[in-house]
């Protein structure tokens, strides 16, 4: 269905086909959100909203419409809304994605669009989960540069090839989509999880860093890389396209060969 938007008349002459907000097609969707409020009920429940959205809208816009126009009590995290801050990872139609990067038109709008909090982390309210266990694992792999010897007076130089070695894992935005898509993490919250291993990989294979062995030792643990069962859920969930399982496999091989 296409509706004409009531736009103020343009003050300048525009050729036909320029501008015109009404050209964006609209469609109706059913947004099915998993609601949970421990102050009201211990049980989480589905809540449906019928919305008219535009072809350019994302799932985040639908959530905004509900929160701003229908029910202000709906709670979710979002910050930049452009796929960089990593705040709005959620389970959309059973898959972990960023709400701000998922266009509604790419989903099946004939069926209700389900939106749930990411799995494996304790839900606090609606779509907000407690990220602390996730960040705890992240901190344990020491995701910062550790170097021995004298501080250089200039910048630390690195060849293009050495930089390329860990380029893929620098893209992580810590949204937890990978870790909360991992069936091992769902049942074993002690597992470091893909995100922590990705961020360890980023420094283990950095030629400027000297604590690779220490990180390999941390990950050479019962709850470390060996918990990975190569289900590839993390690689599919990553909104940044990081080859997460590949990175985990590289860390596994580095532990076995002790060659970085």
């Amino acid at each position, binding site marked *: 269905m296409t509706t004409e938007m009531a736009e103020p008349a343009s003050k300048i002459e525009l050729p036909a086909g320029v501008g015109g907000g009404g050209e964006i097609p609209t469609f109706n969707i059913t947004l099915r959100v998993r609601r949970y409020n421990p102050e009201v009920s211990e049980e989480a429940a589905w809540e449906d909203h019928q919305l008219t959205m535009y072809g350019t809208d994302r799932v985040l816009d639908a959530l905004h419409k509900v929160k701003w126009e229908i029910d202000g009590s709906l709670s979710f995290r979002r910050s930049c809304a452009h796929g960089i801050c990593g705040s709005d990872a959620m389970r959309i139609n059973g898959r972990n994605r960023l709400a701000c990067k998922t266009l509604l038109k790419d989903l099946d709008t004939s069926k209700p669009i389900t939106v749930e909090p990411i799995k494996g982390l304790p839900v606090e309210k609606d779509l907000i989960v407690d990220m602390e266990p996730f960040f705890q694992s992240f901190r344990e792999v020491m995701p910062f540069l550790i170097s021995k010897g004298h501080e250089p007076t200039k910048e630390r130089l690195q060849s293009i090839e050495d930089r390329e070695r860990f380029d893929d894992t620098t893209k992580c935005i810590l949204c937890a989509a990978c870790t909360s898509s991992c*069936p091992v993490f769902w049942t074993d919250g002690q597992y470091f999880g893909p995100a922590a291993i990705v961020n360890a990989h980023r420094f283990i294979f950095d030629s400027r860093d000297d604590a690779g062995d220490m990180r390999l030792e941390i990950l050479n643990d019962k709850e470390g890389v060996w918990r990975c*069962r*190569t*289900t*590839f*859920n993390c*690689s599919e969930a990553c909104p940044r396209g990081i*080859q997460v*399982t*590949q990175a985990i*496999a590289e860390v*596994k*091989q580095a532990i076995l060969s002790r060659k970085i």
Partner: protein
Amino acid sequence: MWSWVGHRITGVVIFFFLLVHVLDTSLVRVSPEAYTAVIGAYKNPLMALGETALVAAIIFHAFNGLRVIAVDFWKKGAKYQRQMLWVVLALWLVVFAGFAIRHLSLALGGH
């Protein structure tokens, strides 16, 4: 993920078969007659279908196990995991079809 789920399920199925298999084979130590009686009881169409399902599980578990090893130890394993899954399924189909045709025609077709 579903290849992993399939691997788990077939693994548990094979485990239970091995459990029963060790028990019925060890019967031969108790008495060869009891062993023959138990093995003879397996010769019915229902068991033939069960054996077919068991072989299907073993073929998948074997080929997918090789794929998982390749993912862990081959440098490009993670990159080609999806292609390898298709290879596993193709091999599974070929081997299982060959087995099923021969086994079921022998077991159900009469001698």
